[in-house]
């Protein structure tokens, strides 16, 4: 198992648990118990039932005929946008809320960028009757207003993160500080495959339902459970981790990550971590991150709040460095253009994050007899104000 986490929490040289002592007790408990709790029959039964009856899984695997024709290959869309709450994020929050209950926790905290994870966390807290506090950068509170309203309606308290660039990184810092202040009753539902071990593995396992379904759905539709390519956008990387998970060790399936280039990789306003980053520590994990020579973390930029993160999950850092995964990047403008294209061609409005993945499909070089699955990680309702602002612009017309 070359690409799975090892027993000390590392993916190759990436991962681990670099945390202050104040977090040790909670992280240690998770490390010792997450696998056994997840393996319990009662846990699996409850998790599977909720995914089916509450989330609406399995999510469809849709053959996008028009895109396929245009790209002269076979394009399948894994429709995570059709999940309850509108993105893949709920796969993980359902799993983690069940875990939190079994750990005896009564209060839930989360960080959120685009607000999709915040909404998914607020949703499961409402479902289970647990107190919920979501940290969100002030910049993101402004640019993802519909999701802030949804979280509030669901009964969560949305706390603005006022430090740094006031985006996902800062929201994560605030959530970690909250956990330090509340070590006994609180569980921290991290939304991506980031953070100290076991979070990257824990979240990847809950999201792995995506590739689990892809296997049998592809088999049903094509006769083979393997596509030639799997494509996903990456910020921290949870939808990519879920879409890749059951294919990690099968190197015949090529893995493609798409980062947010922001205004362009060399503009100083970017979130393309694999190009601009180097090895260091962020949020308790050794991974690739954007930093100065002095090890200060650089503020990233992307139009998409969910990809606006200066690091990348340690699994992905390992996949990239070992050349198991190939990385592309898309700028703000390319992502918006791709979003309109998908909307007009297939009638699907994707989240801005997801749109990045669609922006590079023509660069992959897939052949006519090959197939690719694009993880359509979320829907674009939350991004309508951004999209509408571009409706009259030249981007759409070009």
């Amino acid at each position, binding site marked *: 198992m070359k690409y799975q986490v090892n027993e000390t929490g590392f993916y190759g040289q990436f991962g681990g648990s*670099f945390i202050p002592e*104040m977090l040790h007790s909670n992280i240690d408990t998770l490390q010792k118990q997450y696998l056994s709790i997840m393996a319990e029959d009662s846990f699996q039964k409850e998790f599977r039932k909720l995914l089916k009856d509450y989330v609406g899984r399995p999510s469809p695997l849709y053959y996008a005929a028009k895109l396929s024709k245009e790209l002269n290959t076979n394009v399948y869309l894994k429709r995570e946008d059709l999940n309850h709450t509108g993105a893949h994020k709920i796969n993980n929050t359902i799993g983690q809320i069940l875990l939190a209950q079994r750990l005896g926790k009564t209060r839930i905290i989360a960080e959120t960028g685009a607000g999709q994870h915040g909404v998914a966390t607020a949703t499961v807290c409402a479902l289970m009757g647990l107190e919920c506090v979501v940290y969100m950068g002030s910049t993101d509170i402004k640019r993802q207003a519909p999701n802030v309203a949804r979280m509030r309606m669901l009964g969560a308290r949305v706390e603005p993160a006022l*430090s740094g660039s006031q985006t996902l*990184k800062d929201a994560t810092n605030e959530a970690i500080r909250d956990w330090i202040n509340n070590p006994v009753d609180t569980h921290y539902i991290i939304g991506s495959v980031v953070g100290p071990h076991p979070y990257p593995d824990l979240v990847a396992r809950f999201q792995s339902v995506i590739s689990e379904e892809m296997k049998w759905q592809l088999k049903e539709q094509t006769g083979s459970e393997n596509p030639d390519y799997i494509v996903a956008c990456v910020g921290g990387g949870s939808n990519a981790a879920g879409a890749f998970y059951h294919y990690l060790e099968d190197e015949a399936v090529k893995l493609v990550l798409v980062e947010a280039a922001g205004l362009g990789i060399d503009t100083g306003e970017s979130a393309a971590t694999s190009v601009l980053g180097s090895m260091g520590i*962020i949020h308790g994990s050794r991974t690739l991150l954007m930093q100065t020579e002095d090890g*200060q973390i650089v503020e990233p930029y992307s139009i998409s709040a969910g990809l606006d993160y200066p690091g990348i999950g340690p699994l992905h850092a390992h996949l990239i460095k070992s050349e198991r995964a190939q990385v592309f990047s898309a700028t703000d403008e390319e992502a918006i253009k791709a979003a309109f294209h998908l909307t007009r061609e297939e009638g699907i409005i994707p989240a801005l994050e997801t749109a990045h993945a669609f922006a590079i499909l023509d660069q992959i070089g897939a052949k006519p007899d090959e197939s690719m699955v694009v993880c359509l990680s979320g829907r674009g309702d939350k991004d309508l104000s951004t999209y509408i602002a571009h409706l009259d612009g030249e981007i759409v017309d070009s």
Partner: protein
Amino acid sequence: MNRLTSLFEQKKEGVLNVYFTAGHPSLESTVPIIRSLAEHGADIIEIGMPYSDPMADGETIQKSSAVALKNGMGLEVLFGQIAEARQHVEIPLIVMGYYNQLIQYGIEDFVKKAAEVGIDGMIIPDLPMAIYRDDHKELFEKYDVCHSFLITPQTSEERILMADALSSGFVYMVSQSSITGKTGDISEEQIAYFERVNGMALKNPRLIGFGIHDKETKERAFHYANGAIIGSAFIRAVGNEEQTLEENIDQFFNRINA
């Protein structure tokens, strides 16, 4: 001999460690703050290396760090300032920062440079004990630089013993389950924790930090351990722009000693 080790050989109680963020309130305040703290009777000075993402720190240290970075503080500048301060003060100087800062500088280069400029110890809260033990402990010993690990009310007895075995200079007792900068009183629960650790007869002296902000909490720390660490309260004091640095520091010591 390492100045921290010598200090604790001579002084077993009432040891005062004051933390400040280097580069705050201004880039050039490092040397004057160190000299003034030594003149006012601090036993140890803990110099915070400002970090963009200080995970364990409350608002006061976050803000002072952001100001310091904006002022242009960096590791080379800081090492230069510490070398200069060393010309004037003899008390132990320690640095506190995050592991990523050491990794990017190069661990051995960092420890070597620290020893050269007269740093006696370090506190790196996100450096795991096992990694220190396996990868860095020999290096710290080679350059005679101490390293203090943190323990908290949640730390198991087994881990407290491990932190003690791996620490040199002193063990840093985090007084409560919180980030830095809290200003409440010391609770019965905290006292029970202090007494529990007292009963363990650790090899290292213990300093209590986090939430030590006035005379009363300082005296409590002196009573239940070998000394106290004050950080955020000092930073708040020197951040008062209506008075000079010296006036702010005078006022701080009047408050915690009066």
